[in-house]
């Protein structure tokens, strides 16, 4: 597998500008002859579809939801980073770049990250022009807040609904292009395969989720904006529909899958209760601006929070990391919470959790200000738990939230398959081994509005418009395979729902490949997953047929892919013999329990290549080069 990053050499400050100068352009009159497929309509997919259509390309956009407005980007709460330096607190493009590379624990490609920081400022302008109602000061100018892993206030926000507002902005831009006929929208449609014709991605096979119809779609290039794979853990903060199917199908057609073991645990989620829970709910990281995290000093102290006196509380983040305090990055905060609970300081009776307390903030700022900042989050917490954070501290615990790994892409965001582009969370770029808060929205929109629309031209300029046809044998083969798989699922007629298998594999990877990983545990998981997979194909029950609306079939198809993907994720975690960012191997830690990287052996991205159904995936590497931010042990102390 050839892994050429194609990132330009020379001074990093001008590399994106020079690259744009160097790549091929498609003549405006010719753009309308090209057809691009975009799968997914979250921030990355919707912004890319809208922008490509504005440029003149014809776009077919797909989403499995009933409307493009519902993609999971909508659930992002806290904010979006941009190096505007409106707060005059010393922010700059370089500082955002530096924070992101360091926050990612030196496992991201420097030049991609620098470009992201440069583009961040344009995103805010674009979104404001669309009518995104960012928070403002009384004077009418935009407001900012702080987020984990940064010492400046560079996060733009829209109450606790930033993702929703940004997505609605992109969705509206997309809707305008749909009305103009430049985008053909296919909602309730799921990608089931990517079609590769003579080494180039030229189409997809889809299933209409209402009628069950299997269809072929041809184009000159294919863009995947299909999000992350956090639901492999079953319980995560992802939406129920989030899945790995699109990226996994692409992987099986030749796209390398990079760093699948880099998964992010979000430190502030509502703790798990009972056995029936279907998903976990995140409480925005922005809460750590004013909330203080603590546990009782005494092990087994289960008194209500308000009865525990100040001197018996351990504000452990402030104690362990005085410089960043409650605003340490997510991986650090998550592991600290796990350690406190492992040592017996949990505040959840019969479960795991720590307190996030607003008492001091309410005293300092007044209830009104706290309500303005976090009101809707407090309301959401109260709705789920029945307790008001104004009266008693929140209980929180880490949960799977985001996946840094994804399909490998070069500087142009093209995967290892020609003409197959991957944007947003679905790709592996920019965040390394750990993503900083408020950077996912930034990356999704950077890719969709400002990177892909330029770089895809470089590929299209080499292609004859409309060169491929749905009559090509590759389409027929892919369609046959898709249909055979559906037939197999609906004809197994076993006794167990797909959800039950999903919970089982999810619990296994959470235990063995979650917040802390060991060689032994990973080997156990790798041995166990094929066994669950075998049982799945023997005993899964998918009632009904493929020729109609069938949610059991949708779930089963996605679980089948998770059951294959989970194994590669665990192998990646096993072979990466170091700790970095969200990947914490217990064998590799400093005496005080911090992640211990190995920059000699592992300063690379691991890229997994499919090698046929009967052979294990093959691990390749892309060496990372650090010319600007020299790898050092991350310290937030």
């Amino acid at each position: 597998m050839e892994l050429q990053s194609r990132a330009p050499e020379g001074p990093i400050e001008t590399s994106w500008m020079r690259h744009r100068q160097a790549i091929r352009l498609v003549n405006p009159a010719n753009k309308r002859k090209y057809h691009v497929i975009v799968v997914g309509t979250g921030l990355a997919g919707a912004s890319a579809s809208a922008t490509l259509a504005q440029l003149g390309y014809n776009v077919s956009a797909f989403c499995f939801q009933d409307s493009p407005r519902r993609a999971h980007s909508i659930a992002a709460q806290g904010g979006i980073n941009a190096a505007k330096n409106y707060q005059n607190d010393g922010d700059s493009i370089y500082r955002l770049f530096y924070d992101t590379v360091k926050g990612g624990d030196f496992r991201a490609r420097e030049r991609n990250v620098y470009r992201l920081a440069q583009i961040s400022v344009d995103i805010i302008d674009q979104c404001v022009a669309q009518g995104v109602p960012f928070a403002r000061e009384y004077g009418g100018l935009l407001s900012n807040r702080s987020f984990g892993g940064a010492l400046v206030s560079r996060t733009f926000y829209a109450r606790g609904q930033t993702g929703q507002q940004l997505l609605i902005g992109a969705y509206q831009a997309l809707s305008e292009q749909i009305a103009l006929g430049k985008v053909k929208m296919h909602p309730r449609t799921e990608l089931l395969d990517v079609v590769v014709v003579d080494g180039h991605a030229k189409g997809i096979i889809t299933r209409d989720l209402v009628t069950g119809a299997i269809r072929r779609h041809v184009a000159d290039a294919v863009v995947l904006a299909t999000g992350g794979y956090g639901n492999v853990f079953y319980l995560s903060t992802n939406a129920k529909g989030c899945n790995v199917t699109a990226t996994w199908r692409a992987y099986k057609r030749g796209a390398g899958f990079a760093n699948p073991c880099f998964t992010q645990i979000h430190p502030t989620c509502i703790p798990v209760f009972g056995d029936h829970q279907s998903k976990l709910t995140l409480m925005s990281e922005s809460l750590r601006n004013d909330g203080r995290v603590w546990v009782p000093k005494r092990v087994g102290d289960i008194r209500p929070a308000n009865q525990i006196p100040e001197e018996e509380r351990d504000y452990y983040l402030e104690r362990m990391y005085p410089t960043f305090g409650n605003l340490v990055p997510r991986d650090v905060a998550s592991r600290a919470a796990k350690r406190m609970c492992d040592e017996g300081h949990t505040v959840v009776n019969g479960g795991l959790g720590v307190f996030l307390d607003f008492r001091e903030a309410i005293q300092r700022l007044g209830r009104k200000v706290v309500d303005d900042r976090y009101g809707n989050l407090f309301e959401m917490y109260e709705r789920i738990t029945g307790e008001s954070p104004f009266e008693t501290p929140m209980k929180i615990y880490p949960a799977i939230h985001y996946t840094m790994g994804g399909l490998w892409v070069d500087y142009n965001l093209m995967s290892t398959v020609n003409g197959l582009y991957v944007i947003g969370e679905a790709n592996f770029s920019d965040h390394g081994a750990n993503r900083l808060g408020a950077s996912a929205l930034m990356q999704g929109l950077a890719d969709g509005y400002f990177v892909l629309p330029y770089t895809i031209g470089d590929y299209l300029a080499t292609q004859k418009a409309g060169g491929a046809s749905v009559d090509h044998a590759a389409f027929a083969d892919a369609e046959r395979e898709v249909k055979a798989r559906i037939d197999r699922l609906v004809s197994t007629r076993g006794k167990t729902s797909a959800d039950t298998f999903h919970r089982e594999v999810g619990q296994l990877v959470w235990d063995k490949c979650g917040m802390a990983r060991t060689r032994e545990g990973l080997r156990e998981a790798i041995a166990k997953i094929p066994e669950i997979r075998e049982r799945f194909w023997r005993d899964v029950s998918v009632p009904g047929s493929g020729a109609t609306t069938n949610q059991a079939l949708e779930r089963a198809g996605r679980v089948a892919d998770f059951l294959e993907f989970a194994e590669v994720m665990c192998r990646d975690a096993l072979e990466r013999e170091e700790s970095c960012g969200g990947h914490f191997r217990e064998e590799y830690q400093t005496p005080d329990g911090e992640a211990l990287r190995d920059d000699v052996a592992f300063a690379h991205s691991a890229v997994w290549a499919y090698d046929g159904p009967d052979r294990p995936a093959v691990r390749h590497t892309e060496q990372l080069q650090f010319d600007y931010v020299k790898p050092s042990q991350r310290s937030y102390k």
Partner: protein
Amino acid sequence: MKVNVRVWRQSGPDAQGAFEDFSGVDVLPDMSFLEMLDVINVKLEASGSEPVCFDSDCREGICGSCGAVVNGEAHGPGTRSTLCQVHMRSFKDGDTITVEPFRAKAFPVIRDLMVDRSAFDKIIQAGGFITARTGSAPEANAAPIGKQVADEAFDAATCIGCGACVAACPNASAMLFVSAKVSHLGMLPQGQPQRLARVEDMVAAMDAAGFGACSNHGECEAACPKGISLKFIARLNQDLVQAAFTRRS
């Protein structure tokens, strides 16, 4: 606790529907309403029967996918909540719970509780946007927007497009949905150039999609999980009148 659940089952848009009873469903008070349906579905699937079809995605009250009429109320008991945020503690042991799809001419049933709300997308396509070509935006702080205006626009912008307003309205009107978008964009300075065309085009699209007229019942506001205010409908009407007098012949 145990509850009895009566769920609307309908195999397709043109099929005859009927209630199916699931009695003695075992639930925990902290379970969400949709998790209660999951429990029913896992059992149905394991026994080879087709599960109850319903839309849901984020399950944290923001994506707008879920929704059903529960005991006569859109999104079920409680105020300002989507169905996914309703918990079984809102019911009592032994309760019978009736679950039906959102019903409106413009929202045809696809299957069971799943309805087709694509009419909402068509309304947005008709004018629910500010034209701003990517790359052409001015510096974000170039035009200050007073906090009060920004906040009010935000209140309108919080609409999640779930359709509860339509389901709750005796006329199946989409006025609250349309007025929220018209107000969000129409209050902001960026939205002024297209303000009057927007309101006319969106209202025309709403009528064409088969939604009813607004007759000020106010049920929409009561059902809205985001608390979108009726005042936005008044605002829409002002814009509509202004458009009628000043635009086109």
